[in-house]
């Protein structure tokens, strides 16, 4: 390694350099790495290991879920042994799907009703003055 160094830094540079170094890495940590690097690292992990990073700290809580490489491992997610096969995984998958749909519908339908209600109010509001105008 040392063979490649052909000249040492000059004394004046030294002060300047110290400042750069300190500014650049005040105690570098894994979460301080550029985001794309963190995602690259997480994408090299099996899905359960990546998800486990959510328990490290509040900064890490959601990082794994933003990892751009999606890997859906039914065996890991539904706690099956590899020998269980599809017959074990599918019913659990269906339950998860049902629960997700129910949750979504619970949130979506009131929203839909509210939007429809607002729309009706708006239409009435718009047409009422016209109606009045005609009468007058």
């Amino acid at each position: 390694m040392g063979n490649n160094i052909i000249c040492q830094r000059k004394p004046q540079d030294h002060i300047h350099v110290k400042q750069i170094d300190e500014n650049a890495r005040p105690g570098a940590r894994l979460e301080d790495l550029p985001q794309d690097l963190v995602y690259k690292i997480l994408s090299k992990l099996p899905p359960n290991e990546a998800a486990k990073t959510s328990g490290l700290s509040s900064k890490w809580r959601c990082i794994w879920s933003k990892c751009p490489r999606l890997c859906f491992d039914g065996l890991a997610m539904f706690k099956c042994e590899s020998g269980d096969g599809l017959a074990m995984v599918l019913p659990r998958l269906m339950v998860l799907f049902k629960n997700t749909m129910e949750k979504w519908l619970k949130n979506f339908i009131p929203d839909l009703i509210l939007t429809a209600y607002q729309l009706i109010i708006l239409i009435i509001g718009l047409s009422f003055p016209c109606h009045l105008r005609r009468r007058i």
Partner: protein
Amino acid sequence: MAAATDDAGDSNEMIRVVSSDGEHFEMPEAAANLSLVLRHMIEDDCADAAGIPLAVVAAKPLAKIVDYCTKHAAKSSGLTIEEAEELKRFDAEFIEVDTDMLYDLLVAADFMGVEGLSKLAVQRTADLIKGKTPEQNRETFGIVNDFTPEEEEEICKENEWAFQITKPPSRLC
């Protein structure tokens, strides 16, 4: 060493690079070509005697990168099985560094576009995370646990599937 590469002719030419803290390094052109940034600089005739300045790479990681590129450039083409094995051993030994150096290498290799080293460092970091408890990972990477016990329990419940595989549920958090 550099004569072994495909780049006939000027492959013996030495390329100078300057780290952010002003140290100068030299490597064969074939080695510099492994870095995308340096290759583009060489193609654009920016590699003069003063050296190519690398504003965000400090001397320590740069010395390692120069080492890596020199080794890999010398053995880039027509590898025999033994040579490939040797290169693998070199890589394994090369990346046995502390976490501070690992971060530096990750950032520097990514900045300089040294794909092989970037992959190596990313894989090494992933390997360090793999198979550890959150507590062990916090220790390795200096992460401070700022969760309350309730929050921790909530996260364990949220991602129950992930936490249950390696450990029994009673010792999750």
